[in-house]
């Protein structure tokens, strides 16, 4: 399918910005996106904005999509806030794609924004903690670190995955993120540092967990027939798939599988006429290191249970045959919840066009990429396939 | 008219496993005021009178064994219930599965509450020969850490099934005494913590007066002499009180041995005589007689006389609970009791 194109993409810096709220962050992403449109962007062509957002930073929760749209100069368009926890951005992209596919809009923005550092750590945990199963999982004493910790521990018990394998994800992603000028954390870490970090939810330690982040991103989605108005090198969304899953991990048949990822990616592959083998680059949802290992398996990059070996063998490094999270992933780049999914699209847009900010992160000759965005502990998953 | 025998047909106890030693108090305060108490039990942060009552109620039912749907009367007793106003029985009844149409009573305002609940429920069984009453006493009293009455306060629970069948111990009779005394171990409705004005001789007099009047009246009514009893279970605010009361009634130290639990677990408040009674039942032989004498400040006493007629014991025994322990230090104790604000 080559009916939908992405012709521009922007991202704010990811980090902690006391002087910027959701409006300012979204504007930064919007301007960056507009500047990336090779032939220039006339804002009057934009008909819709799908904005991923979870909490608005302790601020206005209702109608925030209209708020950020008018702030960037788009007062009278179709705006919707998309909320699927950390999967909001990925679903915002899918919504924009479906809008264009339906013929309703010719040009739409898919974006996301999150302001996480305006509220106390306690309040932050409250907001984050209500995206798993609150009634049972939260009240058993877990937040997401505990839930992914349960998964990691079972994975280690059932498949022999080792502590080192988890830390290899953190090391790899920090190495990549150190070369990403927009990443929250731009420093490499050693395997020893990653393995010896303080325990958060055993077996997960501090370096197994992504941080809280402020940030925004936006991509310009349009009907492929008019892509050339904006750029001679558009990127196409050739496939997408979404799936929900049982919210509580204990309700799932297999503790070590995100069925949402499996089903969403299967739908995306089918639509694009591709298999996992055809994917040359992926941005996956590494909210916790175990989540990246699970993604290797559930996206079909390797067999179930073999993810530890897969990273150990170097497949997912830049330079390997299946580079994953060249941006630094959520771990190093940051995870502003509503923005993460479209931030992955921003990265993939640049990788596919060869326009990544620092050449050392550029994966050469990549033509087929996959982005994978998960809500919470897998309750919702959105996968999109982007191609040159 | 011969009335039907009623009594205890099942029982269960629970002592939380955390302990603190007298030595830790001595390190902290220079002295430890609870005479004869070597260490005492402490509840975990996620336990309270209701969770403990639920636990022992289940055990008591299982010891018969019988299902909760047959409980026709329920009573809960505690001086440290988590609410001063809220129906406590409801929580336990729903948790255990006692029919919601069963009449229940909450007994809370003195350490006599445990035996009050027993007597009230025996009245039910007397009037409902086919009925089964369940009594749960669970307590973990709290006082200010500055007050020496705090030193002996421990934690524990015991429950009893009362009926007219399948008896372990038959009730021979009860007697009670109530009086007006004040200033000893009290909490006004604004207080979370026990006060005690330490007017020692005055309080001792109240203790002796109420208990000897109740127990004396019972023994007279039943025409019993001290040597006819093998076990005497007395309220234990510390480990020495039983001897002082027992002595006045003609009992010896030997009578007090089987139920002398406070040296290991402290003052269990409204659960003191119930848990001590469970310990006596653990040790008793068929044919033994047990005299129970409770005391609650303010003040009052109940006395109950039992004859052991059945061999059934509950596991784990009170001693098994006493032996299952893990020590905490004084700082940890303060945190667990919510004393660090």
């Amino acid at each position, binding site marked *: 399918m080559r009916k939908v194109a992405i012709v521009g993409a922007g991202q704010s810096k990811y980090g902690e910005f006391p002087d910027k709220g959701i409006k300012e962050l979204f504007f930064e992403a919007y301007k960056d996106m507009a500047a990336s449109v090779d032939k220039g962007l006339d804002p009057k062509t934009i008909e819709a904005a799908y904005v991923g957002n979870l909490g608005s930073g302790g601020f206005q929760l209702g109608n925030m999509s209209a708020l950020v749209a008018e702030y960037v100069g788009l007062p009278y368009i179709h705006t919707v806030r998309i909320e699927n926890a950390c999967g909001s951005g990925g679903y915002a992209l899918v919504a924009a794609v479906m809008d264009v596919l339906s013929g309703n809009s010719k040009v739409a923005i898919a974006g996301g924004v999150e302001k996480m550092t305006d509220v106390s750590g*306690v309040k932050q*945990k*409250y907001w984050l*903690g*209500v995206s798993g199963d*609150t*009634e*049972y*999982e*939260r*009240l*058993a*004493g*877990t*937040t997401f*670190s*505990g*839930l992914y*910790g*349960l*998964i990691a*521990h*079972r994975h280690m*018990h059932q498949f022999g995955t080792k502590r080192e394998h988890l830390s290899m994800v953190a090391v790899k992603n920090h190495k990549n993120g150190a070369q990403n000028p927009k990443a929250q954390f731009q420093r490499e870490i050693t395997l020893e540092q990653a393995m010896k970090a*303080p*325990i*958060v*939810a*055993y*077996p*997960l330690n*501090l370096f197994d*967990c992504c941080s809280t982040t402020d940030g925004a991103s936006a991509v310009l989605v349009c009907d492929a027939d008019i892509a050339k108005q904006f750029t001679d090198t558009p990127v196409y969304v050739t496939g997408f798939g979404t799936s929900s899953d*049982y919210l*509580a*991990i*204990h*309700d799932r048949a297999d*503790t070590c599988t995100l069925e949402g990822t499996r089903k969403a990616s299967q739908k995306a592959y089918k639509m694009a006429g591709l298999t996992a083998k055809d994917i040359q680059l992926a941005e996956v949802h590494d909210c916790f290191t175990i989540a990246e290992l699970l993604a290797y398996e559930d996206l079909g990059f390797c067999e179930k249970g073999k993810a530890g070996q897969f990273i150990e063998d170097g497949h997912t490094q830049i330079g390997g045959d299946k580079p994953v999270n060249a941006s630094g992933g959520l771990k190093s780049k940051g995870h502003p919840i509503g923005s993460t999914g479209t931030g992955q699209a921003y990265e993939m847009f640049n990788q596919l066009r060869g326009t990544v900010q620092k050449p050392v992160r550029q994966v050469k000759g990549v033509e087929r990429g996959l982005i994978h965005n998960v809500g919470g502990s897998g309750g919702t998953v959105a996968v999109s396939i982007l191609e040159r | 008219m011969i009335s039907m025998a009623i009594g205890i047909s099942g029982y269960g106890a629970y002592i939380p*496993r955390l302990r603190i030693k007298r030595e830790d108090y001595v390190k902290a305060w220079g002295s430890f005021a609870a005479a004869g108490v070597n260490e005492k039990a402490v509840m*975990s*942060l*996620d*336990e*309270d009178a*209701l*969770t403990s009552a*639920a*636990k022992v109620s289940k055990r008591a039912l299982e010891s018969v064994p019988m299902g909760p749907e047959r409980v026709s009367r329920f009573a809960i007793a505690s001086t440290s219930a*988590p*609410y001063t106003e809220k129906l406590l029985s409801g*929580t336990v009844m*729903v*948790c255990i*599965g006692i029919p919601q149409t069963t009449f229940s009573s909450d007994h809370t305002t003195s350490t006599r509450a445990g035996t009050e609940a027993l007597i009230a429920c025996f009245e039910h069984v007397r009037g409902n020969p086919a009925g089964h009453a369940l009594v749960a006493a669970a307590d973990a009293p709290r006082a200010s850490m500055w007050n020496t009455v705090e030193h002996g306060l421990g934690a524990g629970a015991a429950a009893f099934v009362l009926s007219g069948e399948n008896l372990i111990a038959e009730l021979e009779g009860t007697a009670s005494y109530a009086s007006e005394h004040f200033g000893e171990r009290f909490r006004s409705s604004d207080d979370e913590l026990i006060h005690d004005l330490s007017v020692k001789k005055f309080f001792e007099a109240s203790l002796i007066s109420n208990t000897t009047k109740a127990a004396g009246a019972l023994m007279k009514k039943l025409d019993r002499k001290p040597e006819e009893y093998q076990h005497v279970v007395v309220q234990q605010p510390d480990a020495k009180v039983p001897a002082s009361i027992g002595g006045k009634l003609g009992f010896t130290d030997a009578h007090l041995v089987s139920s002398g639990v406070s040296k290991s677990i402290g003052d269990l408040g409204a659960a003191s005589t119930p848990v001590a009674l469970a310990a006596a039942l653990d040790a008793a032989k068929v044919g033994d007689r047990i005299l129970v004498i409770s005391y609650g400040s303010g003040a009052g006493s109940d006395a109950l006389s039992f004859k052991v007629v059945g061999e059934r014991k509950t*596991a*784990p025994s009170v001693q098994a609970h006493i032996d299952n322990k893990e020590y905490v230090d004084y700082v*940890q104790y303060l*945190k*667990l009791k919510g004393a660090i604000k």
Partner: protein
Amino acid sequence: MAHVSIPMYWRTIPQRYKMMGQKCKKCGAVNFPPKGVCKYCNVSSEFEELQLSGKGKVHTFVLIGAGGAPPEFADQEKVGGSYPVAIVELAEGPKVIGQMADIPPKEVKMGMAVRTELRKIYTEEGVIRYGFKFVPDTDGK
């Protein structure tokens, strides 16, 4: 706080206090906690109530440290140190998450036998929320 409202918490009392499950009338599988449609056959909404034994085995567990504790449990972690949370496979089939109690974290083992017991879960707006936790299931205790 997670802010589970009073009525919302109250509606889960049959599960939290009594381990009430539902047995699917069509496929016979036991759902716990309850669902509108049986999650095994995905077809039937007809169930019969079944009180579960509360017994099960640890399927996986995690040890929550200060950084991983939700605010409702922050004080508990400060006082008692890290606490174990397990997904337990109940004897009747379903798996459910629950905090463990009465066991030092380093003694928790995969596959160990546990059973439920009523404990205080947390307090919100002055109201104590009770529910089940898992304790080691050693015979006779």
